[in-house]
């Protein structure tokens, strides 16, 4: 069974729209014939086989369920120090982390199984609808009056023709809905597959060249329930480490060995952010011996749950027009621990007070605004391409942009058109799942780049909820994906509910 190109479904929809637009008494029979020839083909996919596929995921989830717990039980027992040769990692830690990772399998596979099963259900339903439409089209083809344009003029009641045209147009519109629904369902399933893929970070990292132990320990390191390094960062880190000389690797291993597990993860995150090894080694010395709460507050701005904050002071935009700048600063702080450290400490590594932090952030926001607005008036905020430049340019003093060499670009969104909003949402979700923060531009109306526009930052994703950081108050809140799709982002700015643009990483 060969697969059908998604674009072919778009072509079918366009063809049906043309047929519906051009309906008239002369074209009616031909339009019915062409619609029948399109709708006669069964929809691509096999719902029965998909249900079997779904059950394979559910079974694997059930069978793997107890194994993660068994690994944790082993880790809790006294294990001899057998993990020789790997840096600063105990056997118990590796086994415990492997247990954590194995425990991620059942929910991920249950989610995949359920997603496939839902798609199979939708496919069955749509296939039934297709067969009904086909039957109605056949019935119509036998009943619709013919008109001979070259022969004798047959008198036909115009009202009767109008009724026929309306009926056939409805059938064609029904067919268009059918194929649109198929594409929508496929978009959802493709996004769900990307979600599940994003949970397999250790495997992807090992494939990219990282050693087994490092990959397991890093993939299992979380802060406030979120992975400290996303898959994109893990993969980039694996590439950087694979390219190191033995001497460089020895220098890195030496400083890793002097730090706690969480500090090691931050050191490697700094490396993944593109900082030079010498700077990373200096940073490792600066954070050596610090407690986990200290590390999380200074390097993740995670002092207060549900906020980006430090010493009780939220990371917020400094002026009314700097939501774009603050979003860039927040994105870099989340992606580069050395940049976060620079925001929270003064010269010599002295921790700042909350007030000093706020003043420092205000200066960095302004510097970022100066960088992003070379032409665009600062009084109008930041343009979307200015935000993209800021994300790419390290204007806030970060080592580099969160997306690495691939960079960020602007994707325009029309949230009144699901075929525009849905792909943008899915792309944003994939990026966030991979570890990229994603700025979005909200505005009162579509196409609005003036008064009322506001940037927020997608920082996470779980199920059908987006975690969104708002630079206006520094809060991170959960918003349903449907609010993004339906132009209903009221949670942030009642006057600016529409997503106008997404600043998307390309890599």
């Amino acid at each position, binding site marked *: 069974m060969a697969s059908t190109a998604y674009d072919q479904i778009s072509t079918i929809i366009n063809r049906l729209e043309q047929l519906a637009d051009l309906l008239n008494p002369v074209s009616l029979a031909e339009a019915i014939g062409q619609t029948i020839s399109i709708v006669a083909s069964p929809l691509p996919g096999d719902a029965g086989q998909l249900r079997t596929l779904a059950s394979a995921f559910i079974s694997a989830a059930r069978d793997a369920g107890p194994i993660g717990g068994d690994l944790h039980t082993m880790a809790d027992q006294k294990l001899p120090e*057998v993990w020789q040769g790997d840096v600063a990692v105990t056997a118990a830690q590796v086994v415990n982390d492997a247990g954590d990772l*194995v425990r991620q399998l059942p929910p991920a596979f249950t989610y995949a199984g359920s997603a496939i099963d839902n798609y199979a259900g939708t496919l069955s339903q749509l296939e039934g609808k297709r067969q009904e439409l086909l039957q109605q089209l056949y019935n119509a083809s036998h009943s619709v009056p013919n008109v001979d344009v070259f022969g004798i003029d047959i008198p036909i009641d115009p009202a009767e023709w109008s009724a026929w045209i309306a009926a056939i147009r409805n059938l064609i519109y029904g067919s268009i809905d059918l194929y649109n629904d198929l594409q929508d369902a496929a978009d959802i399933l493709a996004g769900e597959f990307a979600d599940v893929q994003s949970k397999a970070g250790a495997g992807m990292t090992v494939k990219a060249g990282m050693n087994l132990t490092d990959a397991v320990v890093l993939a299992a390191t979380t802060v406030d329930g979120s992975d400290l390094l996303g898959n994109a960062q893990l993969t980039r880190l694996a590439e950087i480490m694979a390219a190191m000389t033995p001497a460089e690797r020895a220098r890195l291993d030496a400083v890793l060995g002097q730090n706690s597990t969480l500090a090691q993860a931050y050191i490697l995150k700094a490396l993944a952010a593109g900082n030079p090894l010498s700077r990373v080694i200096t940073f490792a010395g600066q954070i050596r011996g610090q407690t986990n709460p200290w590390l999380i507050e200074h390097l993740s701005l995670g002092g207060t749950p549900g906020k980006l904050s430090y010493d009780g002071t939220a990371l917020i935009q400094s002026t009314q027009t700097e939501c774009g700048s603050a979003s860039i600063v927040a994105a870099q702080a989340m992606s580069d621990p050395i940049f976060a450290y620079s925001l929270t400490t003064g010269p010599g590594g002295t921790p700042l007070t909350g007030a000093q932090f706020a003043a420092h952030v205000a200066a960095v926001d302004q510097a970022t605004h100066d960088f992003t607005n070379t032409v665009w008036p600062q009084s109008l905020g930041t343009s979307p391409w200015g935000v993209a430049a800021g994300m790419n340019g390290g204007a806030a003093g970060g080592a580099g942009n969160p997306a690495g060499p691939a960079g960020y670009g602007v994707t325009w969104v029309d949230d009144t058109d699901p075929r525009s909003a849905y792909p943008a949402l899915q792309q944003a979700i994939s990026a966030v799942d991979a570890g990229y923060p994603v700025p979005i531009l909200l505005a009162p109306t579509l196409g609005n780049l003036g008064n009322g526009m506001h940037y927020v930052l997608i920082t996470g994703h779980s199920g059908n909820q987006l975690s969104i950081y708002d630079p206006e108050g520094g809060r991170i809140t959960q918003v349903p994906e449907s609010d993004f799709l339906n132009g209903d982002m009221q949670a942030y700015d009642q006057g600016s509910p529409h997503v106008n643009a997404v600043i998307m990483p390309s890599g």
Partner: protein
Amino acid sequence: MAELGFDVTGIRGQAARAAALGDDLRAVQGTWETATGSAPPALGLDVLVSAFSAMRDAWSEQFTVYTEVVSKLSGHLGAAATNYSRAETANTDNAEAVMHGLNRL
């Protein structure tokens, strides 16, 4: 037997438990890979085939990481048990040699 502070029997038990967990994981992986390997055409659309294949490949790698970690642990534990056992045997031999020497005095 823990004369030198090592519970060799316990460590052997841990090695066997790790090996069994590795076998369990490989069994789950094998069943899942067989059941899902020929699935993509049933998805119908090319975008779904490609997204599914990427997801399946990533999870195959992830399974392999699980099994390798557990295999590595099992191997290390088994080797440690062997080394500790040898050390204890050597210790016992030494003790017997000392006793033998003492008896000859």
